[in-house]
């Protein structure tokens, strides 16, 4: 057909481990097996990545589902065709300088008064942090100072400079911070199953595309989904950990292998492709709690395009 | 457009090329300030060589600028060159400014040839002409120097050569020999007169040197101090070519010299012969 063997350009909204299935499908040749020539590019956050999708410089994008809901709510058609990572792979961690003045095992309530870093204001990490604080009975606007910092390298630096006490990380950064530097300690490690339920089995990052692309290249999209589903199966098999570390190192050449290993081991079970209607509810809950969106929630048919998963044998 | 020199000498007044009537120019922003030129009238015939003398700051350069079409100030009166009103820069006018105005990034020879370059003359031709003029003003050997490497008088001579290079119909010259020593001045004046006598271009020469005016011009206009006006006009009756030593000795020369000198003098005698 017209798009067989076609070139497919996939963007990842951040250089992150949540796109591990893409790296695996690429490096283990699953895309090639499907006759696809895939090119992966990285962005600095959801907005430019989605812009690239809509502007036509990429065909598919790995971005947070929450991101898509916001876009949909503004009347732009972006569809999720696959769940890349089902659980939020984040963690709330606290720096040793704070712990020095607050002895005892840290919990969320003990962070009262702390300066806590998130990524950009209104982004996923920010919303997750607010949710966690609220869930523990703290008012995120009064009981703590939330400081948006644009990247975790800067979070580490700012904490080192004494301007931060805690941070909400996403993988692999909490592993770098806690296990790697030894200067941080977990408060809530969502990747390990701690924290509120909204972060579990909730479509954290999904593979999204534009209706125009899906209409013109249905077969390519189906093949991509098929290859990624296969890759996710590969990831979930604990025996493949060492191979996954090697694959991840190609994308994170400067990150230490032990860190990658620990991070992947924690989250490999979350790379599940299935999309379920209640995932929309969970994301909406988070968004509504942060007043980032207004009711009503969109219908699953508005945001999901499930035929590709079905074709790949997932439901 | 050119007359033979004989014909030109006969009818300078019948065929005025430059006509100024009641010219009034002021620079000040406020109307109350005295104008620089007020009711100034003059004419220069085709092929005539006219000298303009007057006290420093009286507006001689301003007159030349006006004729050249460079004045940007409030101006009134009538001003025509070759029958055309001067509302822009007219072609065929060469103007040697009071300051040399050489382009600092061009060597001497490239400064001299620039007028020809602008007219699109091929490189070899214009270079030849420029080198020839360069020799005539006594700058041989300095063709590849930059203006900053020249002495004051050498810059002035380069500026003269540049003005002559384009062979203009009308020549406006503002103290073209002022920075030259007496001997070099004679040499260069000589070169200039030689050039002039070939085609008898119309020349309006501003000078401070009465000897220069008397030796070179057909007619001398004397300007008053501010506001500038033509207060007196002298025909210079000497035959051409003129011999300066012989001229200086003649009583008519001395008489004319003293007359003009007295016209220029604002007041009474000082111990050193200057008004206080």
């Amino acid at each position: 057909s017209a798009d067989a063997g076609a070139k497919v350009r996939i963007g990842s909204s951040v250089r992150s481990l949540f796109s591990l299935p893409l790296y695996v499908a690429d490096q283990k040749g699953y895309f090639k097996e499907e006759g696809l020539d895939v090119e992966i590019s990285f962005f600095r956050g959801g907005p430019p990545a989605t812009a690239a999708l809509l502007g036509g410089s990429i065909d598919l994008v790995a971005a947070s589902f929450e991101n898509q809901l916001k876009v949909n709510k503004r009347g732009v058609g972006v569809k999720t065709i696959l769940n890349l990572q089902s659980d939020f792979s984040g963690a709330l961690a606290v720096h040793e300088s704070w712990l020095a003045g607050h002895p005892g095992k840290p919990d969320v309530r003990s962070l009262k008064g702390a300066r806590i870093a998130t990524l950009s204001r209104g982004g996923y990490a920010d919303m997750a942090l607010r949710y966690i604080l609220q869930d523990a009975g703290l008012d995120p606007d009064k009981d703590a100072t939330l400081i948006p910092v644009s990247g975790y390298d800067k979070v580490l630096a700012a904490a080192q400079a004494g301007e931060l006490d805690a941070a909400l990380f996403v993988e692999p950064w909490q592993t770098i911070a806690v296990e790697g530097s030894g200067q941080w300690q977990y408060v809530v490690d969502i990747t390990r199953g701690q924290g509120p339920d909204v972060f579990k089995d909730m479509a954290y990052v999904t593979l999204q595309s534009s209706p125009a692309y899906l209409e013109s290249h249905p077969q390519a999209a189906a093949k991509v989904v098929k290859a990624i589903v296969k890759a996710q199966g590969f990831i979930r098999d604990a025996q493949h950990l060492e191979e996954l570390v090697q694959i991840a190192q190609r994308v994170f050449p400067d990150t230490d292998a032990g860190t990658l290993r620990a991070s992947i081991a924690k989250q490999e079970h979350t790379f599940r492709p299935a999309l379920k209607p209640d995932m929309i509810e969970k994301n909406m809950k988070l968004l509504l709690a942060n007043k980032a969106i207004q009711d009503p929630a969109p219908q699953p048919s508005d945001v999901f395009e499930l035929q590709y998963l079905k074709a790949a044998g997932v439901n | 457009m050119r007359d033979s020199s004989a014909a030109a000498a006969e009818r300078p007044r019948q065929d005025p090329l430059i006509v100024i009537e009641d010219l009034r120019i002021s620079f000040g922003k406020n109307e109350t300030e005295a104008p620089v030129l007020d009711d100034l009238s003059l004419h220069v015939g085709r092929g005539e060589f006219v000298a303009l003398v007057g006290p420093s700051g009286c507006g001689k350069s301003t007159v030349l600028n006006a004729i050249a079409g460079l004045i940007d100030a409030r101006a009134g009166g009538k001003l025509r060159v070759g029958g055309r009103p001067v509302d822009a820069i007219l072609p065929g006018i060469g103007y040697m400014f009071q300051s040399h105005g050489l382009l600092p990034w061009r060597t001497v020879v490239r400064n001299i040839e620039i007028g020809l370059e602008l007219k699109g003359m091929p490189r070899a031709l214009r270079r030849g002409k420029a080198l020839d003029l360069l020799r005539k003003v006594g700058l041989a050997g300095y063709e590849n120097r930059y203006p900053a490497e020249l002495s004051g008088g050498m810059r002035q001579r380069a500026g003269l050569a540049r003005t002559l290079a384009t062979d203009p119909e009308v020549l406006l010259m503002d103290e073209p020999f002022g920075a030259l020593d007496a001997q070099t001045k004679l040499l260069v004046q000589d070169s200039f007169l030689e050039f002039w006598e070939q085609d008898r271009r119309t020349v309006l020469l501003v000078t401070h040197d009465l000897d220069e005016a008397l030796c070179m011009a057909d007619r001398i206009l004397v300007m008053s101090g501010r506001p500038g006006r033509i207060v007196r006009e002298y025909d210079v009756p000497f035959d051409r070519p003129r011999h300066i030593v012989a001229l200086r000795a003649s009583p008519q020369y001395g008489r004319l010299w003293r007359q003009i000198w007295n016209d220029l003098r604002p007041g009474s005698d000082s111990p050193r012969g200057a008004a206080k």
Partner: protein
Amino acid sequence: MTALRSVAILRLALALATLGFWEAAVALGWASEFWVSSPGRIAARIVQQIRGGELWLHLAVTLGEAFTGLAAGVVAGAALGLLLGVSRRAGPTLEPFVIALNSLPRVALGPILVLYVGIGFASKFLLAFSLVVVPVMLNTYEGIRSVDQVLVHVMRMLGATRWQLFHKLLMPNALPWILSSVRAAVSLSIIGAIVGEFISAQAGIGYMLDVASGAFDITGMFAPLAVLMAFAFAADRCIVALSAHLLRWRAVNI
């Protein structure tokens, strides 16, 4: 006078045409409101933000960062340029280091910047400062080198000390150069402040932009940008007016 008036009319026409075309393109569906917003929506949002009062706060924060950085950068740049132009040793010794350091892309230095100066005002100030200082330095230096040698000689013969030479000759001579670089530096200082705010901020136009972009709210991005633009433009006009006053002795007519 007529030329001035016709330029004013042309400007207005161009501005109205651009805005009109933009509004029409969105209204007629040629461009998506989601991505390009529209002048009407932006204006409405600005009004709303002004009513809400937050806009002035954020604007004040960003302009504060940018313009202190600008001021410090101009002073330091002019001083360095003078040093470079005048000193026999110190200037030429420092120059390659300044030039080399200046080529470092500031956006990439985030972590190190944060490590040493934190995420507060200082980081934004420093970024703005660092973008401003070298263009001003280079122009000051060239402005000094463009001095007429005769004027240098005149001043030295009149007994000018080295400091007086700077102060009374080289600085005024470099003034058109410095002012030109200051005009260019206005936008650089704003970029520096915004880059700093993107690294981390709790207020400022960069913060507003970050929030709006995270919410895919293009109108929300354009509204503060339009206000910022208006202020930067006003700053530029101030510099132009200042130039015209300081350089009133210059009569140019090309």
